[in-house]
């Protein structure tokens, strides 16, 4: 991956048009829309999205823009409503997106105007898996489940291990980081190698082990469509925190909800960290700042605001069936480690900004000045073969200190941004 690609404005424009317009984009978790009339507003890069639960309990997503003059219809982050009324001329829409009210309608438009033609514009595709609601701007996109592919098996563990699944606590935290979306996606999906240096303060504090390879034990799993997940265990292949330090009373429930292979993997794993291409990342760690260790699930969307800026959306999730005091302690563990004030998060943000700072110059662009002008993604190449005995789907390498997931991410990224360019080239011949 050439360094200039990270922050190049033309490449960024291609990404907006060819990556974000036809991949599945995470909008919300079902627990954020509990009852009829509940809604949340989200973004797919620059497209404002209104996601509602209708009176029949169905989920619907619309472009959050009035069909009259295009005004951003609902600017609240979340809420409950029966109708959405545009503050400009007063056009109002119901939960089904139908235009139901026009101020002075009959007098100014007469019978000729067919209201049914002026409803809110539906987002072409809306599908969910394990409570995770995704949208796609491409009408012809492959189904969500096909897109997730092997990731479903891991989502079944992360989101389906408990009765009732996971629930979002409150709302996502949001803040803006100086970073490129690809770099931050890689940071979670493909890069346990950064842990020992970026997060060395946790070692100095005695929170993490001092073994410099501690983050490498486990598997890096390359999945289709640029997805990947790292399953961190320990030197012995078995975590010292069985079932991620969850209460023992939950384990029989895990066993009931998972296959024997999934149950065994969960029993041996300390951290699951990965990403769904292009810009959804997650981490399920064992953490805490008060001396007690707890597990939680953190999902984040990196909404691009340009080649060198992302708006981070960070959700905290916890097993609905977990004991209340455990939920509270896990929440505090999250606040101290990840999210807007997380101590691990804040060291990451400094590094992300330093990548974009140093990638905009002539030497990172110029082929003549090419001192290996390509970022290094060689870790593990030719050194490790896939572990055929790993129980889950995907290509699993026997250490997480490898760049295979990044390479898979880049390959799919290149496939998407070069798609019609290559077709056009073929036609020109």
């Amino acid at each position, binding site marked *: 991956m050439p360094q200039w690609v990270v922050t190049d404005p033309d490449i960024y424009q291609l990404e907006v048009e060819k990556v974000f317009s036809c991949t599945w984009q995470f909008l919300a978790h079902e627990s954020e829309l509990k009852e009829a009339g509940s809604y949340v507003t989200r973004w797919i890069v620059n497209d404002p999205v209104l996601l509602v639960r209708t009176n029949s309990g169905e989920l619907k997503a619309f472009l959050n823009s009035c069909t009259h003059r295009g005004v951003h219809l609902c600017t609240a982050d979340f809420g409950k409503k029966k109708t959405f009324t545009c503050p400009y001329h007063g056009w109002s829409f119901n939960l089904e997106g139908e235009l139901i009210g026009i101020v002075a309608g009959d007098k100014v438009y007469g019978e000729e105007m067919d209201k049914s033609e002026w409803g809110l514009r539906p987002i072409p595709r809306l599908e969910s898996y394990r409570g995770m609601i995704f949208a796609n701007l491409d009408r012809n996109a492959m189904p969500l489940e096909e897109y997730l592919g092997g990731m479903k098996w891991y989502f079944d563990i992360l989101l389906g291990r408990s009765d009732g699944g996971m629930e979002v*606590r409150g709302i996502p935290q949001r803040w803006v980081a100086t970073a490129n979306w690809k770099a931050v996606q890689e940071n979670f999906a493909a890069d346990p190698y950064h842990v020992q240096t*970026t997060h060395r*303060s946790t070692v100095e504090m005695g929170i993490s082990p001092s073994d410099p390879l501690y983050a490498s034990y486990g598997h890096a799993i390359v999945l289709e469509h640029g997805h990947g997940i790292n399953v961190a265990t320990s030197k012995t292949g078995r975590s010292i925190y069985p079932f991620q330090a969850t209460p023992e009373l939950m384990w029989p429930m895990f066993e009931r909800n998972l296959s024997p292979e999934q149950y065994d993997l969960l029993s041996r794993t300390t951290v699951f960290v990965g990403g769904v291409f292009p810009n959804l990342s997650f981490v399920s760690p064992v953490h805490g700042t008060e001396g007690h260790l707890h597990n939680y699930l953190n999902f984040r969307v990196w909404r691009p605001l340009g080649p060198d800026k992302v708006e981070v959306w960070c959700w*905290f999730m916890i097993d609905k069936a977990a004991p209340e005091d455990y939920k509270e302690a896990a929440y505090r563990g999250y606040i101290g480690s990840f999210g*807007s*004030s997380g101590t691990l998060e*804040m060291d990451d943000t400094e590094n992300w900004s330093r990548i974009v700072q140093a990638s905009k110059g002539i030497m990172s662009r110029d082929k003549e000045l090419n001192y290996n002008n390509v970022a290094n993604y060689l870790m593990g190449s030719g050194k490790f073969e896939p572990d055929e005995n790993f129980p889950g789907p995907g290509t699993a390498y026997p250490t997480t200190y490898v760049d295979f997931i990044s390479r898979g991410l880049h390959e799919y990224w290149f496939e998407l941004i070069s798609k019609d360019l290559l077709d056009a080239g073929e036609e020109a011949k």
Partner: protein
Amino acid sequence: MNAELHCEISNFLYHEAYLLDHRQYKEWLDLLSEDLVYQMPIRVTSDNKDASNLVYEMKHFEETKKSLTTRVNRLYTTSAWVDNPATRQRHFVSNISVAPGSRPEEYRVRSYFLFKRSRASDIETEQLFGEREDVLRKENGEWKIASRTIYPDQAVLSVMNLGMFL
């Protein structure tokens, strides 16, 4: 509320800002009571003007003296990159009002804050602004912060991280 008390409490808050701006975090911890409640709810855009535009269920900070001590100790390691190289930060405190608290020796103190941060040679400065609601208590003749709630004005924080204390 008498002017002398108002002046005393104002000076205490200015001193606190001075300690934070000069990275004297351990000295700052000494200003906090052992039973401290320190929190920063999330500001949101809500759909009607009567609804609260603050969310308390999920917050940006949810701290105790113990967890803040952990945060401070981390900043004194050699690898807390958020503060290494150190950023330059400035806490501006204003609009201080003092009212009697629920117990004798306790006062409810409201103040506005503006936080500015400069990183490396970056010409863009980061900022946060909003309001704080504190409970200050006199313990053995010294002022302590017994409770602080920070209300940011932004729904999307325009800082890369909350590596500072507010």
